[in-house]
């Protein structure tokens, strides 16, 4: 039923209203009516409150990172820094080897993401386009791994990686995480929507599977591959427990673990430097998120509401 006619100030809408009023209360407001001022005000107060809940901690993080000491150890709180204390960053940088942490995070995130997404694309193509009799059980087997809680695998993976001699190496940090079910599924779903005609046309032109994958299917699935890459990348950069277990020396730690190291180095009290370190860990991901938020939220929401 469409009520499009109702807001129009014409005779016909008056007739429509009159006709409707026979069996429903006429007070039913049309959808786009302006709300009463009090309601609008209340909604904006709630929105401001919501925004505060999420933004205030972040504001606190970024301002504290540039506050001089006498702005931090003071009460009532000094909300706005009285001076810009960038020494917090150099303090953090000298207290802990942040250059190593950055390098380690960069190496493990880039290589781990490349490998995981690469494997995801290959297997998604296989499941979408290559003929094989036992496809369905294999697909279910791989998707089933999403039901295995990652935390339960820690202990045995540690033992396995130890037996392979990869403890405290990049290989040890990266390899156990390259198996991919979520990203594969995401990419598979998009690949299935690539039209058969295009693929068949390429086939008639004599293009083999690898050719078709590389120059037809992958370009046409690029949006989802990009989304999958972003989601995988965030997970790798933010990962905490596995790099914590598998590395044992300071020079192999990644940024999130380096943050804990910094905290113990600073005697748990130099909050300016600790917040500066936290900014260094969080800022790269925040910036990427702000730039690519549509894609990231879209990918995660699709997994939640349509999965």
């Amino acid at each position: 039923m469409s009520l499009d006619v109702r807001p129009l100030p014409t005779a016909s809408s008056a007739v429509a209203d009159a006709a409707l009023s026979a069996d429903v209360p006429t007070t039913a407001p049309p959808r786009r009516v302006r709300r009463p001022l009090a309601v609008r005000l209340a909604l904006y107060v709630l929105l401001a409150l919501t925004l505060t809940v999420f933004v205030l901690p972040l504001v606190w993080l970024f301002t504290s990172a540039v506050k001089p000491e006498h702005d931090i150890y003071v009460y009532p709180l000094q909300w706005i820094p009285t001076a810009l204390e960038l020494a917090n960053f150099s303090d953090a940088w000298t207290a802990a080897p942040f250059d190593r942490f950055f390098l380690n995070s960069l190496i493990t995130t880039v290589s781990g993401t490349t490998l995981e997404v690469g494997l995801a694309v290959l297997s998604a193509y296989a499941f979408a386009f290559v003929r094989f009799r036992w496809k369905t059980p294999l697909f279910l087997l791989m998707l089933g791994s999403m039901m295995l809680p990652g935390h339960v695998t820690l202990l045995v993976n540690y033992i396995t990686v130890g037996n392979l001699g990869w403890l405290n190496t990049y290989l040890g940090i990266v390899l156990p995480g390259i198996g991919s079910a979520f990203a594969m599924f995401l990419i598979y779903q998009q690949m299935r929507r690539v039209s058969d005609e295009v693929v068949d046309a390429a086939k008639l032109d004599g293009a083999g599977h690898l050719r078709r994958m590389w120059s037809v299917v992958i370009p046409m699935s690029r949006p989802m591959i990009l989304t999958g890459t972003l989601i995988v990348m965030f997970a790798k950069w933010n990962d905490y427990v596995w790099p914590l277990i598998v590395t044992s020396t300071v020079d192999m730690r990644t940024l999130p673990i380096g943050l804990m190291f910094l905290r113990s180095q600073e005697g748990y009290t130099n909050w300016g430097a600790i917040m500066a370190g936290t900014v260094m860990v969080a800022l790269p991901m925040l910036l990427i998120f702000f730039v690519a938020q549509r894609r990231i939220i879209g990918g995660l929401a699709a997994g939640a509401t349509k999965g």
Partner: protein
Amino acid sequence: MTAVVDPPRPGQAAVAAPSRPVTRNRRRSNRREALLFGALILPNLAAILVFSYYPTIYNVVLSFMDWDMVAAAPEWIGLANYQDLFTSDDFYTVLGNTAIFTGVAVVGSLAGGLAIGQLLSQRLKFSGFTRTMAFAPHMLPGAAVGILWLFMFDPTYGLSRWFFGLFGLTSPSWTTTSDWSIWAITIAYTWQRLGFVAIIYYTAIQDLPRDVYEAAELDGARGFGLFWSITRPLLSPVTFFLTVTGIISAAQAFDIIATLTGGGPGNSSATLTWMVYEEAFQRFDVGTSAAAATVLFLVLLGVTIVQTRTAGRQVHYS
């Protein structure tokens, strides 16, 4: 493919005979396809088998063993690890902590997220900006969130002192007293998840069928009644999904606990996940850790089974 072994039926013989070489080609091409298929999925499959399936299974085996990672080989001790677990008060404390942490985080983020998702879909100015800022904490490293909240919870120089001061109260020592530590990790974790849940709800609300609302408004439903009798039931599949995934991720939350309280003081904020880590990598008691991990696995497996069972029987209104 099976044309060769099938007895030729009348009327088909004429077709089957000349197709013989084609069939052979076909079979060869099938084999090639199968080989290609294997090559394409093998690396991924191998990684999943070696680093997901095998450890989950071998973890159960280890839970019947006694090992300190130093002795040459683990020793089989049967159910002793489980007996120790289920007769120790500490383990029940840990289970209770896990239940509080998971329950409050899941229920809190669902209730708050639904309210915020509903608010965000009211076409207000700045609601786009609010959506972005609400989702941002979800993308931050848990360790960064933990350290940030550690400072906010500081009773002398943190936001907590200001917040409690607004009501004329004194801030508790969140992370250093055993009455409060469990709430410290629960609040920080819920804050990180809340915006994610809100945006998922918001997205789902955008997808709701308009005509149902128009019909309901004609029937005189509005305001909270409209929300309660239409929106809430229409969202039940999403609520269910968020509950299950919420339990699974909260039960495995680690970085916020590690950075905020380290499970302490004592074991006042230790969850099952924290215990799995602590027993294995700080006490080097492989068997106890494996047994706790197996309990965690069975609980989460139960949750997953309930999900797959129920998913098929869900209410769909469109």
